């Protein structure tokens, strides 16, 4: 899977907001707020094709977390991005 090209995180009032513009002005823009870890994952994944396992390993390397916590976090992060249509399979 990969993050869609037109997804970008922007800092608004100190928060990391992921905006996905509606298609050709017909749909409302969808917004999710990322915490610092979510933003870190976004920057790791953006521009690449990735699997859940790869991201979990990246997370374990960077943060002091065990496999099951990292796995849970990455899954939740992917679900959230998927819910606003930010992921292409």
């Amino acid at each position, binding site marked *: 899977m990969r993050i869609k090209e*037109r997804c*970008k995180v*922007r*800092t*608004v*009032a*100190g*928060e990391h*907001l992921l*905006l996905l*513009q509606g298609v*050709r*002005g017909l749909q*409302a*823009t969808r*917004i999710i*707020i990322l915490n610092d870890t979510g933003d870190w994952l976004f920057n790791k994944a953006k521009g690449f094709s990735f699997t859940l396992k790869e991201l979990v390993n990246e997370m374990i390397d960077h943060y002091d977390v065990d496999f099951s916590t990292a796995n849970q976090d990455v899954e939740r992060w992917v679900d959230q991005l998927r819910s606003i249509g930010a992921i292409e399979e």
Partner: protein
Amino acid sequence: MKIQYYQIADINLAMPLDEDLFPKKLKRSFEPFLVDSSRNTDRVLKVTFSKKTLQKPSFSVPCYLEEIYPFCTWFGTSSLLSDRMKVEPDEDDQKMDYCYYSHHSSNDMAVCCILDLNADEAEIVVWGEEKQEPCYCQLISMALWAAFGTWALKYNRLFLHSSVTVVGGKAILFLGESGTGKSTQSRLWQKYIPRSWLLNDDSPMIFVEPGENADNHKVDVLVYGTPWSGKTSCYHSIGVPIASIVRLTQGATNQVTSLNAVNAFAALQPSVPPMLNSDEKLTDYVCNILSDLISEVDCNHMVCTPDREAVICLQQKIL
């Protein structure tokens, strides 16, 4: 040809005074913004009109498309234009052209506006002969609105679709989906609150002083009247400090809720001209302006009724 200067939101629009191309009806809405040209040499968008006989543009890649009867409107960068428009490919990466194109669905009237964001220049090409027709005026007005609204982002200015009422020298902006009652709430304030008046009923422009400001430095946040005010003839060349921004939803009772920064962003973002969200560079400008705006201004959501109760309820909350 004589060039007229118009000062809108403290930045300038320069246009030739051409009776043939600039409709009389439109002149009335621009007149309050006329200024002496000798004072204005910087921050000027130079607009030219042409009657070139070129083919109408076609957009090969979907960009922004809006179909609001009777107009069909496209907006995008020049790379999205087919070569039929004869826009030369960018030799210099710094060059940034935006193209706005709108045509009437039942006659052959159309307008195209090419904006060179870095050169501060816009060229408007028109098709159609009936210069004083209402839809011709509307097409020109929309092209100028699109060009000026896009260019103004460079100077931290942003059109925000709203109705603006001024009370005691401070402005309240009513935002909401079409038909929610923005103008109705404005009118109710003018009816029930003495000395309140309408600044603009459709497309005011906001300005936020940019940059990182020290805590004790009061940042300027203003809303300006513009020549674009929807169906209401209300054209004031003045900037007013913003007291509050209120997003409206219709309801059976009245209730005002303060919005935190993220919810304020979500409340304001749908009122930004949608074409400005169709391009990454423009969206960056928009997000920066909104971010500065919501850090400085009180933003609320209001469920409201179309009567005096709504005015009293909001007045108690924000004034």
